[in-house]
């Protein structure tokens, strides 16, 4: 086991407070200057079940999750029995005294002794875990002060006392775990998950309208936008269904708002008709689709990358679109910002395709650079150019987009085929002209495609092709691979459109190309085949609802190579 990182897994039932412990500990880890990657697994229930909150901390960049556990904090017997087998040699098990741990040596915390009430058990666990991974007590104390700040001095004082007792108790124990990771890039970094980063990217792009219907695992995008944006003027509404959410977004966008909708695959399926409406009415909208396993209700709280086909083909008829697939919170932020610019510039739907794993995965990131962001395109508020035609035929297919109600010119948008002045038409020449005009916008979108990132030496024996958050597992698999072949990774963060010249050389010069995807049918490999004719023969596919890990990739490669 490499000493680069420590993986702390807190396991227990929903309602036992593992997320509270996990988030406090995570924040403390980041404030102590370490890198961090949090992976959450939870069940679709409010109480009970087995959930885990895994905190991987290290001195170097952490790319993906891992299966092996260095410290297991089991809040109940099930968490212990299910995960004790994943604890590495030299690892530590932390548990209360309320269930048996058999022959396994464990640090048993006497909760009753250390806490006056069960209410404080989370603070006890925080103190013990903080001590075992070598965090300074002061960092934990500051966090508690902030967390309970609004509850008054009495609550803060009681929690601080419990924390100090628990920390001291752990300091006095010889629990046989002394591994430490080096500091990362120091304090001052942000800690946030993929969904929060998407919401912040949207705000940075000027997003001031969100309509949505709650759906796991997408809801926290809207919740973050409301919490952070509403005090600054963002308008929001929880629609009666996804059809309403998307159509409400159409209305707001037409009237000049910068608009976001957020949902998961099942909800997005309902939005399909209005995606088509956005296409023909040339209404900008950014759709955040946070994937979970389907079909239909699938597994509500697990992860998968199986909605690429849906997003690529959503909406009837033909119209331009772009699809981004971020791998990290940084990419969530910057690609969402970019999605707004493309949507506004080309007046068409643009998609950010995330997934549960990234949505709930906290990382430490460099503070985002607001000042360095490019300007986002805006619609016109004034019109002085003679007769205004909403769908004027232009060389690049982009018609001047005017906001209604700000000038004498009338703005008329239509779902029917229409002429330049929005009059409904069935004239075959006008139809061809308008459809061609809309599709000409694809040339502009094509010019702006972000090419894939290549990691590795030239002419690798094996090239792993991946998209979205599967990147981390691929990078770490390459890092940990001990065979005699040279490995490289080609990662796509924009999955549509594709520009062959940005990546065909990599595919053609590699000895073997392996698609690594979180779905059962290698959807992205099929997109590449469809766009370029290049068929990727080998696949490592995961569709058990869990995120790709380096262990899974290496095992898959062993089977192939």
């Amino acid at each position, binding site marked *: 086991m490499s000493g680069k990182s420590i993986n702390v897994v807190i396991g227990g039932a929903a309602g036992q407070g593992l997320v509270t412990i996990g988030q406090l500990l995570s924040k403390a880890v980041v404030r102590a200057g370490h890198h961090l990657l949090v992976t959450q697994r939870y069940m679709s229930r409010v109480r009970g079940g087995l959930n885990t909150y895994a905190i991987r901390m290290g001195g170097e960049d952490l790319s993906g999750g891992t299966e092996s556990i260095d410290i297991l904090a089991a809040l109940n017997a099930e968490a212990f029995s299910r995960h004790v087998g994943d604890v590495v040699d030299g690892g530590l098990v932390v548990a209360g005294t309320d269930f048996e741990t058999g022959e396994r040596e464990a640090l048993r915390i006497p909760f009753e002794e250390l806490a006056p009430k069960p209410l404080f058990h989370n603070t006890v666990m925080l103190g013990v875990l903080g001590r075992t991974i070598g965090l300074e007590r002061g960092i934990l104390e500051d966090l508690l002060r902030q967390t309970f700040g609004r509850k008054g001095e009495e609550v803060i004082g009681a929690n601080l006392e419990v924390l100090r007792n628990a920390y001291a108790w752990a300091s006095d124990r010889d629990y046989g775990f002394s591994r430490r990771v080096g500091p990362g890039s120091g304090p001052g970094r*942000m800690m946030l998950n993929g969904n929060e980063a998407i919401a*912040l990217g949207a705000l940075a792009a000027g997003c001031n309208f969100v309509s949505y219907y709650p759906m796991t695992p997408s809801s926290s995008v809207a919740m973050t936008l409301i919490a952070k944006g509403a005090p600054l*003027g963002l308008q929001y509404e929880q629609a009666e269904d996804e059809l309403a959410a998307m159509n409400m977004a*159409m*209305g707001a966008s037409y009237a000049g708002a910068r608009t976001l909708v957020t949902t998961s695959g099942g909800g997005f399926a309902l939005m399909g008709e209005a995606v088509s409406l956005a296409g023909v009415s040339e209404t900008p909208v950014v759709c955040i689709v946070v994937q979970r396993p389907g079909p239909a209700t699938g597994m509500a709280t697990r992860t998968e990358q199986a909605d690429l086909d849906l997003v690529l083909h959503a909406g009837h008829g033909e119209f331009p679109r772009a699809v981004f697939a971020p791998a990290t919170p940084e990419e969530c932020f910057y690609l969402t910002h970019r999605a707004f610019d493309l949507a506004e510039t080309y007046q068409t739907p643009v998609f950010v395709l995330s997934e549960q794993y990234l949505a709930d995965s906290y990382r430490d990131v460099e503070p985002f650079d607001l000042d360095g962001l490019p300007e986002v395109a805006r619609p016109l508020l004034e019109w002085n150019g003679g007769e205004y035609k909403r769908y004027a035929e232009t060389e690049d297919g982009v018609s001047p987009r005017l906001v209604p109600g700000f000038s004498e*010119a009338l703005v008329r948008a239509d779902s029917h085929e229409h002429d330049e002045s929005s009059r409904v038409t069935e004239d075959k020449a006008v139809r061809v002209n308008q459809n061609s005009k809309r599709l000409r916008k694809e040339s502009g979108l094509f010019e702006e495609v972000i090419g894939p990132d290549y990691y590795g030496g030239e002419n690798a024996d094996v090239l792993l092709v991946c998209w979205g958050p599967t990147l981390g597992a691929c990078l770490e698999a390459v890092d940990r691979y001990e065979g005699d072949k040279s490995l490289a990774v080609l990662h796509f963060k924009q999955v549509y459109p594709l520009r062959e010249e940005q990546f065909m050389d990599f595919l053609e010069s590699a000895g073997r190309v392996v698609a690594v995807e979180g779905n059962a049918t290698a959807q992205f490999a099929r997109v590449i085949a469809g766009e370029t004719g290049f068929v990727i023969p080998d696949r490592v596919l995961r569709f058990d609802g869990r995120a790709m890990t380096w262990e899974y990739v290496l095992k898959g490669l062993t089977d192939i190579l």
Partner: protein
Amino acid sequence: MVSIEEYGDFDTSWCPGCGNFLILKSLKQALAVQGIAPRDVIISSGIGQAAKLPHYLRCNMFNGLHGRALPVAQGIKMANPEAAVLCVSGDGCTYGEGGNHFLAAIRRNIDLTLLVHDNQIYGLTKGQASPTSARGHVTKAQPEGNRSDAFNPVSVAVAMKAGFVARAFSGEPEHLSEVIREAMAYKGFSLVDILQPCVSFNKVNTYGWYSQRVYFPQNHDPSDWGAAMVLSEEFGDRIPLGIIYRAEKPVFGLGARLAEHEYDKNDLKAVLQSYT
């Protein structure tokens, strides 16, 4: 002063004698009387013959999808609270395909006016029963008679305590125009269900059928919810017209015009700072 002429005069694809013509005329009249210029009007519509109305009016419009005119209209108003927002569509679009949106719009109570051209039939698809067709109404698609009860939109809206609920008849254009004006002046969600003969496909609910039944109730107090509930149930030999129910209620809060809205960069920096 705004003249009716400013709202234009267009060729339509409506059948000669269609009730839609008088609704269009009454709407123009209501807009002109209020002094609202075309640039300040935004109409959202769905699909169907009624939904074509904004194509025959000089105004801003978003002609969207079947059943979805209300969500679009609400999005428009949320983004531009200063615009006079109308939503125009038929009974199939509003009460069938868009039924859930109708219920939600009443509950949400965003300040806009919904005009429903209610002809109790599907006209554009040539004569099937609509949600407001009476039980037993015989059509090509319901040869043994409509097997479902009619949806009573006025009754449902009153039951949900929508703030402004009215019924009008295209054969009474002066009254219709006045009701539209009052609906638009009302602060909150207002419904005007407009009886309107489909001269091509509804051979039951004809101009004569409606004319013989409609009446203007005397001494009805629209603020009396119980009385409104009783009156709203009346739809048969006699059909009451006018404002059935009116009450003040909390209006969905709106912000500034979003097209002009921009975040202060320091505010955004403070938001990012909260994640360190």
